[in-house]
């Protein structure tokens, strides 16, 4: 599996665990609204993502994320900018 897809798989796993959903029902196009992720849940998601990928998601970036795909893209960008991150495993 390539690294990019691995980020997506991990994000979907995190979201599925949080929302007690089947990971197969979530794609990169799935929106926070569809997942029932409110602003507080989104802050919680960012906390887990930051920990997992050893990155710091700026507030502005976090606030612009409204879909799984946007989270994945944001992580990839931050991971690429930070060689010490653990985004690829």
């Amino acid at each position: 599996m390539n690294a990019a897809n691995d980020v997506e798989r991990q994000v979907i796993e995190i979201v599925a665990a949080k929302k007690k959903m089947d990971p197969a029902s979530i794609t990169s196009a799935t929106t926070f609204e569809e997942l029932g992720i409110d602003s507080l849940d989104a802050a919680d998601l960012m906390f887990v993502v930051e920990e997992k990928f050893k990155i710091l998601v700026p507030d502005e970036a976090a606030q612009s994320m409204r879909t799984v795909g946007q989270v994945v893209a944001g992580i990839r960008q931050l991971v690429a900018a930070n060689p010490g991150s653990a985004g690829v495993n």
Partner: protein
Amino acid sequence: MRHEAARRVAITGLGAVSALGVGVEALWTGVANARSGVRRIASFDPADLLTQIAAEVPDYDPAQHFDEAALDLLDRFAQLALVATREALQHARLALAEADRDRAGVAIGSAMGGALTQDERYERLYGQRISRIHPFSIPRIMNNSAAAQVSMHAGLRGPALSFATACAASAHAVGEAAEMIRAGRADVMIAGGADAPIAPGVVRCWEAMRVMAPAPCDDPSRACRPFSRDRLGMVLGEGAGILVLESWEHATRRGAAILAELAGYGATADAEHITQPGVHAPARAIALALEQAHLDPSDVDYVNAHGTGTRLNDSTETTVLKTAFGAHAAKLAISSTKAVHGHAMGASAALELIATILAMQRGIAPPTAHYTAPDPACDLDYVPNVARPLPIRAAISNSFAFGGLNAVLAIRHI
């Protein structure tokens, strides 16, 4: 009778979590039988502390009461508030119609709010130097979280308030909730208090004040001995006490079983000293509660004392009772149930009011446990060690907080 002209306040439901167990019956069984809930601290290793005892809630498993997602947002004090609320609502058989929810509110007292969460998060931050803090920290720590969680749980959309008046917080919450009902601003109020302060940092802070009872070598459970000559201080506790209050009309219209009338409330401030208790203002709080209840001092049969077990509180409270009741003070049955459920901070007054209501309903004055010998400075009848059958027409519950903030609640048999 004069008091029937104003809106009267009925108590129709009780819920409790304390060091004596989960539930109102566990509280009463411990209180009535002088069975202490004070033990060596079990929630963390207290080996480094001078104070190694507390009145912790035994056999409480959060997972039995809440799912994982709910627990993420609930500090222990809010959990205990919710568990007690569920019991109180069930006890009151209160099922509010949608329209009634706008007329139903919440008033919860807490001295320290989410102290455990705060202690744990700050330990990570300052102790372990982990700078990342979980985003649910504020919703758990904020003092109003219990009031908010209760309003959400019960779907109550009337006034919802939190009271932070330390050891008197739930007395002020219940008293002010009753005032809201009397003023016509609400028909139903879920009122009481919750605290869960048994965290290493909090215990250390209390220790520093030199008011904590040391654990006797032979039996730690006997550490708190209110009004006794050999009393050595207070024991920190935790818990929640919740009451359902209704306007008399609301309660009778729906055919609720009324447990007692919340007849009077007096609130005063010493305006003197941040920790040392006064005499005049607490006595005036008693007088105000009796006046609102249209009770003569001689109508009162039982007093649930603040009775923390410190040298100063218990002798001062004795003087307060003599000042407020005059010659009748000698005829009062007085007890401090803190000897067995500890000082549960913002939950104390509500737990003690619940014990007072049960005492009235069952005609039994609960004892002051661990009493060994009379103190010349505490020379009233403290119902030492053994419960006493006693018809109780009216009773008061005293709460005198640090800061000299006093609240007294008066209840009447119906």
